């Protein structure tokens, strides 16, 4: 291999004068720009987020070793992530171990709400950061030390853009969409809805008071992600919670199998 440009041939000239027509003599598609003398090209072929992906893989291996089912909850701010987690925790009622990681820019308010349920929780404050990354989750998991066969609920920073790109090592992403946000949200934020395996429509108890077109919203979700599982929930009134809880219980059972 040529040590200068990393291509498969050797013995070709790299230190040529710039700005003249010349024969390249490679015999294959190369695609690099002509170099100035005194420079060399180092081929990297590396994903930009490789470091995060490596750490996410480490988290995933740790979850697998402990048979933990981890889920990454994302939504716009105010969609009802924490309220859904509180309702889910109550619905699970101690049938299997739980642990929660809360992500917010500032404050421990969400962790305080989860702690009131008696569930172990760690709050991550990202400060200026707009998403959780695998390193933050690794540190939080070390602090939480969840037991075997636990359900780990990771509440990401309220944001429908950035968290789509950062793998945390979770089994799946769960996107929460409240019916007050409008039925076209999946079309406006397709990356997140595409990255999710589950969508939870929340605040469905408000439907009688809204002009929200449920069928149109479901069609929009399917259009962005035809393979996603959808639950319709009212965390406040309990509608749909048992179905979502059964789904989570099945995930815990699968992780333990």
């Amino acid at each position, binding site marked *: 291999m040529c040590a200068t440009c*990393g291509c498969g041939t050797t013995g070709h000239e790299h230190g040529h004068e710039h700005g003249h027509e010349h024969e390249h003599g490679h015999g294959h598609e190369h695609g*690099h*720009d002509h*170099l*100035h003398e*005194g*420079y*060399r*090209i*180092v*081929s*990297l*072929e*590396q*994903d*930009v*987020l*490789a*470091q*995060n992906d490596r750490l996410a893989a480490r988290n995933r291996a740790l979850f697998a070793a402990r048979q933990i089912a981890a889920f990454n909850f994302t939504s716009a701010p105010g969609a009802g992530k924490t309220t859904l987690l509180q309702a889910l925790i109550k619905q699970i009622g101690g049938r299997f171990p739980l642990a929660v990681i809360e992500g917010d820019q500032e404050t421990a308010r969400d962790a305080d709400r989860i702690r009131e349920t008696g569930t172990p929780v760690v709050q991550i404050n990202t400060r200026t*950061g*707009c*998403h959780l*990354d695998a390193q933050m989750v690794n540190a939080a998991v070390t602090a939480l030390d969840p037991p075997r066969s636990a359900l780990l609920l990771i509440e990401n920073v309220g944001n429908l*853009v*950035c968290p*789509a*790109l*950062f793998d945390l090592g979770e089994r799946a992403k769960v996107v929460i969409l409240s019916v007050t946000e409008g039925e076209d949200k999946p*079309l406006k934020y*397709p*990356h997140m809805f*595409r990255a999710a395996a589950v969508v939870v429509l929340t605040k469905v108890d408000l439907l009688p008071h809204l002009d929200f077109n449920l069928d149109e919203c479901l069609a929009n979700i*399917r*259009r*962005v*992600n*035809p*393979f996603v599982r959808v639950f319709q929930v009212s965390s406040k009134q309990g509608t749909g919670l048992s179905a979502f809880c059964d789904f989570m219980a099945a995930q815990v059972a699968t992780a333990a199998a």
Partner: protein
Amino acid sequence: MHELAITESLVAAVADSVGSDRVARVRLQVGRLAGVVPEALQFCFETCARGTVLEGAALVIDVIPARGRCRQCAAEIAMTSFLDACACGSIEVDVLSGEELRIKNVEVEVQ
């Protein structure tokens, strides 16, 4: 603005790979469906590179077109968004390419 975090990752990854060599140019591949705005990467790059071996380097971004395959009729289609449907009417399209966010190569000064 995840482009800032991504640019920080980019600068860290390149600096790790080249050691003390000064970098003159970074060539990045960004897929059309990668969820990253090339202009925003450019905007962040100069700031993130400051004080590193990448300081003053140029960032060259190649945008990679997106392609998908229909699950229903197996046709391969060009895509510009996740909302693109196949000509057969199916919306069940698997993305084949266009989600890349890869550092292709870097040009460094010969010591």
